[in-house]
């Protein structure tokens, strides 16, 4: 059905709209778009609705669109503002999610890896695009080839190395593999650096500026937009990372939110899980990404075409 809409030329369909009162194909197409948006957005509203319900009433009002017996209890429980007795009274499990600690850990993990990765990858991308040195293309090819290696393949040896270094359950162990580079980040920035004009750079060279100064004072400021986009994508990716922190960051003191949510779920009793608490926790855990998306949505959306390589 959609194919017929698509293959229509745009100007023609505009004229058609003006002449005829109702263009059914267009109406149908918009109905499909609306349906698709509803399918993606509605579950998030359901998450919110559940989080605002009370566990005790949830079962008897399973299909009520509004919160069942409106309550902020779930959020209080997740944020640690409720005593265990109150929590159990509301149908929460005794299991605690040490939310503020996991939040702090997630912030540290995502921020450190993003900052390191973007900065060091920018340096490497500069070397690959603006400096001439023997073997440059061969090394770049090698870097690119590693994009093919599946993460699970390097995860086991990396885990062993981090363990041997005694860095299990430390922030160092969690952040090191992401800190210096990813082939994608270098590739992404190199594409932008290649397109920058050489003139300013050459003028600076004539003035006797060294590479370090050119990098900091010319290249980085001029690449602010791609750097910000990459940082945004990296931060969202790191915030959502589950596998690596699950392997090396099991300890409470370094546990990040994604791992914490998994633990929270497996701790909650099988009979009547603390659904409202779980939904409140997922909602709060997703909040930073949602806020970033609201603030920089256009940037993220427009960068997807490019990041397809990822």
């Amino acid at each position, binding site marked *: 059905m959609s194919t017929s809409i698509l293959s229509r030329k745009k100007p023609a369909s505009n004229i058609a709209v003006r002449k005829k009162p109702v263009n059914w194909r267009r109406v149908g197409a918009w109905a499909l778009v609306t349906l698709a948006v509803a399918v993606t957005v509605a579950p998030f509203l359901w998450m919110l609705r559940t989080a605002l319900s009370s566990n005790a009433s949830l079962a008897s009002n399973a299909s009520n669109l509004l919160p069942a017996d409106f309550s902020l209890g779930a959020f209080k429980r997740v944020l640690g503002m409720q005593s265990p007795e109150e929590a159990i009274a509301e149908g929460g499990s005794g299991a605690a999610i040490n939310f503020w600690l996991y939040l702090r850990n997630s912030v540290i993990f995502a921020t450190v890896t993003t900052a390191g990765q973007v900065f060091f990858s920018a340096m490497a991308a500069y070397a690959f695009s603006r400096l001439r040195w023997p073997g440059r293309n061969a090394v770049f090819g090698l870097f690119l080839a590693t994009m093919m290696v599946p993460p699970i393949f390097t995860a086991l040896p990396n885990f062993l190395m981090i363990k041997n270094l005694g860095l299990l359950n430390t922030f160092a162990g969690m952040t090191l593999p992401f800190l210096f580079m990813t082939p994608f980040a270098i590739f992404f920035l190199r594409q932008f650096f290649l397109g920058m004009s050489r003139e300013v750079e050459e003028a600076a060279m004539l003035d006797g500026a060294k590479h370090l100064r050119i990098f900091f004072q010319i290249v980085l400021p001029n690449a602010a937009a791609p750097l910000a986009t990459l940082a945004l994508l990296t931060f969202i990716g790191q915030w959502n990372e589950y596998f690596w922190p699950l392997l090396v960051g099991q300890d409470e003191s370094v546990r990040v939110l994604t791992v914490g949510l998994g633990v929270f779920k497996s701790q909650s009793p099988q009979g009547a899980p603390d659904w409202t608490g779980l939904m409140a926790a997922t909602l709060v855990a997703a909040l930073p990404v949602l806020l970033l998306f609201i603030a920089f*949505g256009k940037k993220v959306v427009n960068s997807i075409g490019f990041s397809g390589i990822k």
Partner: protein
Amino acid sequence: MLFIFPAMIGFVLFYLVPTIRGFYLSFTEYSILGDPAWIGIKNYTAMLGDELFWNAMWVTVQYVALNIGFQTVIALGLALLMHRVAKSTFIRGALLLPFLVANVIVALLWFWMLDYQIGIVNEIISWMGLPRIAFFGSEQWAIPTVAAVNVWRHMGYTALLIFAGLQSIPNHVYEVASLDGSSPTRTFWSITMPLLRPVLVLVLVVTVIGSFQVFDTVAVTTAGGPINASRVIQMYIYQKAFSESDFGYASALSVILFLILALVAFVQMKFLKGNESDLD
């Protein structure tokens, strides 16, 4: 050289050495307590008779087929819709939303919505007079359910990639086609699809490689169960290494996974001639 130095450390320590060590470990017996002991291809021969391995492979292939099939068709439809009627960033953003949220969160959200007792989906199903479905809890439904959840998460992202490809097809090609009296359906099959091929190949490579490595959703919802119904290959590797401390065998499994992925990428590129565009 100073500029490449940090990236070089990261590359050698966390990409190059682990890749080589991964191959080496696959020929050893290694339980983390002692030193790895060289046992030749024993891990690989053991795999031949390992029913759980073949089961994991079969489950993964089923998942990949379901995931890719539905995701590509839905994403293509969405991309065409966006291209023709709804280019707004708002709509594209809304469709992308699930992709930005962590796998773990998506898994928990659907775990709740698909709950057998009081999940909204089963409420609707029983309201329609149909029997409730134990989505994550039945052998028959576990893998299709995980696949459906991940299609939901990724369809907007995939649609945006295809949308970017559609945008790059010049308008004059369509104008010529319509002057020649080509019907819309014909235009789609003989113009849009062939010109979209490089993008479709890229999308297929990315999604096949990604879906062979499904883990987060399974780990949070079914942990491989019920029985072995959703133990995908990466779950099996994880359990071998971290529950059974059999790093040698786990490494051999990941070598196989690696080889499969390399083969998939190679075949797709070759057969679909991903590098060539008909536009030139």
